[in-house]
């Protein structure tokens, strides 16, 4: 149980490592989906190209968008982008970092699909069977076939059981040819993707590394802060509910006028504990105000105590403080007091 909890906490602690896991699973799922998918070339002149290219490109698009949908950071990014400035300024570099990291992860599953499709060869075979160079590979002077008739015959190359043009061009020849091209394309694509990934990774530190570290830190911070806020709200709701129900029972007790002579001594301290957890937010109006302020005006990124004492509760819309040069001022103030 403990181990499970530890693993779960580890995965949750860092949204990035969690997303790495999801990303790996999606890549495997993408390969599995391709294997399970029953490719079915229509073997008709114009449908072949549409079907083949559709199967090559539509599922990767679906997988790419799915990668975004499954990533919780999407709504976090949108929230961070759209929130009112309040006491905390917005940094576009952080937003850019989040977006880039999400996009990179979302690209893996589509790249796997495209590679697997090209290496397998069925899509290219289906899409380009009508464009096979018959003069090189086959017997063009076989009969005086019209263009349309030839296309109709060539379109049936992927469907071995209904292919009727063995004299024009043997199906194995065409299939081998197209498959060879498809596999060459596949390996080139894999090489290209790997090179790109390598370049991005190795050249990254050459450009603005300091700013990059800053963006990374604050992006993690925003993620963790959001999670902790949700957790705190859940805990608060639980304590609120417990105290509410307890008071309800006590009220009913008084109401029925038959007070039990031995109300247990434990209850006051237990109730006290629960009320402590409420952190002073004990009714609906205050809670709503808190939640609204959290969205409209997040607190500044400064944990110095004096700042908190100067503010009245959660007010903030009308007091936009300056940007992050505050810490310096705080240090000076501290020393001057001494």
């Amino acid at each position: 149980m403990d181990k499970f909890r530890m693993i779960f906490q580890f995965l949750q602690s860092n949204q990035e490592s969690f997303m790495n896991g999801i990303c790996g699973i999606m890549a495997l799922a993408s390969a599995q989906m391709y294997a399970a998918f029953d490719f079915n070339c229509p073997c008709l002149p114009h449908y072949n190209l549409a079907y083949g290219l559709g199967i090559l490109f539509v599922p990767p698009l679906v997988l790419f968008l799915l990668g975004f949908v499954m990533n919780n950071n999407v709504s976090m990014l949108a929230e961070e982008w759209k929130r009112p400035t309040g006491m905390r300024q917005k940094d576009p570099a952080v937003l850019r970092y989040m977006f880039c990291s999400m996009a990179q992860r979302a690209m893996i599953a589509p790249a796997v699909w495209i590679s697997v499709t090209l290496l397998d060869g069925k899509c290219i075979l289906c899409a380009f069977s009508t464009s096979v160079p018959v003069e090189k590979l086959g017997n063009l002077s076989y009969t005086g076939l019209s263009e349309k008739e030839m296309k109709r015959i060539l379109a049936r190359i992927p469907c071995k059981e209904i292919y009727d043009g063995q004299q024009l061009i043997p199906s194995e020849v065409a299939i081998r040819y197209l498959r060879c091209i498809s596999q060459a394309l596949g390996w080139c694509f894999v090489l290209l993707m790997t090179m790109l990934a390598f370049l991005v990774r190795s050249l990254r530190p050459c450009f603005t590394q300091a700013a990059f570290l800053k963006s990374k830190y604050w992006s993690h911070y925003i993620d963790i802060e959001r999670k902790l806020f949700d957790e705190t709200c859940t805990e608060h709701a639980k304590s609120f509910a417990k105290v509410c129900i307890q008071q309800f029972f006590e009220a009913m007790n008084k109401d029925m006028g038959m007070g039990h002579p031995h109300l247990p001594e434990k209850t006051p301290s237990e109730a006290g504990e629960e009320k402590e957890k409420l952190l002073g937010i004990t009714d609906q109006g205050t809670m709503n105000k808190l939640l609204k302020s959290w969205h409209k005006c997040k607190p500044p990124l400064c944990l110095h105590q004096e700042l908190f004492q100067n503010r009245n509760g959660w007010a903030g819309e009308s007091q936009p403080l300056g940007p992050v040069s505050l810490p310096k001022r705080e240090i000076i103030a501290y020393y001057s007091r001494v």
Partner: protein
Amino acid sequence: MDRFRMIFQYFQSNSESVMNGICGLLALASVKIYTSFDFNCPCLPKYNTAYGMGIMFVPPIALFLCGLIVNRQSVVMLEEWKRPTGGRKKDLAIIRYMCSSIIQRAMVAPIVWIIVALLDGKCFICAFSGSIDPEKFAGFANLTQMQTQLLLSKVPCKEDELMRNNTSRKAVSRYLRCWSQALGWSILLLLIVVAFLARWLRPCFNQAAFVQTRYWSNYIDMEQKIFEETCCEHARDFANKCILHFFESMRTEIKLRRFNMPRREEEGEGEADHLQGITDQEQVNKLLKTWYSGKPPLDVSQTTPRQPSGKERACTSAPWGDTVNNRWAAAQKANVSRQTDV
């Protein structure tokens, strides 16, 4: 026992992840049912379409209803919708939020069924083999209308003696399957785009109200769970005390020589007491009825309990979304307004 309790508490702490898990399980079950279902096209002119469309749409409806049933939140939402106002006003935004989250989760399994059915193609071929244009395919020329229809409707059945090794059948079958798969992928793409846009654009609209709605809907869920737990503990203590009293009363009637009952009086009062003064059937009934007909207002700041008298309850109907502090102050003075309870 401890482990079980810890697991139970973990699941209780986050019911959203439980719902997501159930939703995923239903989706997997849907795929499994589809693959193990023995599809059996009738291959008769009018029956094909009915059968094909039926298999495509009836199981998804059943799965959707299953998804609604299995989700605990649907009951919570209905209760919240139908309860009398009592001390707590109702907020439609919360009910809408819960409704939309329930429906989204329930829609996953039916959509998975439909997409798997389209990507597989059997339903589509069965339903629409009679509706294609026979001109496109060689092998249907020189036949009367009736014969063409008959042949076309036999396309889904590979084993039929008319259709075995018939190249036109294979061509038609491939054609229909291609359309079916294209339709399946298009629907999938459309849904993913919609989901993506919904996720991306959510925070652009009224985020503050959304955060509040989410908090209170979570609260309602938790409150209901904790109330049930409290009632369970109460019932257990009630039963415990009832049985102890019974044994003691038996003891006084029967001589000590015959029955050696251990002295339990001291222990009974030393145990943790969850009864909180509610000690007989009518009181319990009244409590449960009052919980339904008049939920307490959302204010736990007072140190002394509220003092309603008899059937009247002091209700200050504080609405969900109010942010003015006056209401909070008014709730302190519990006896200001009275409202006859049903």
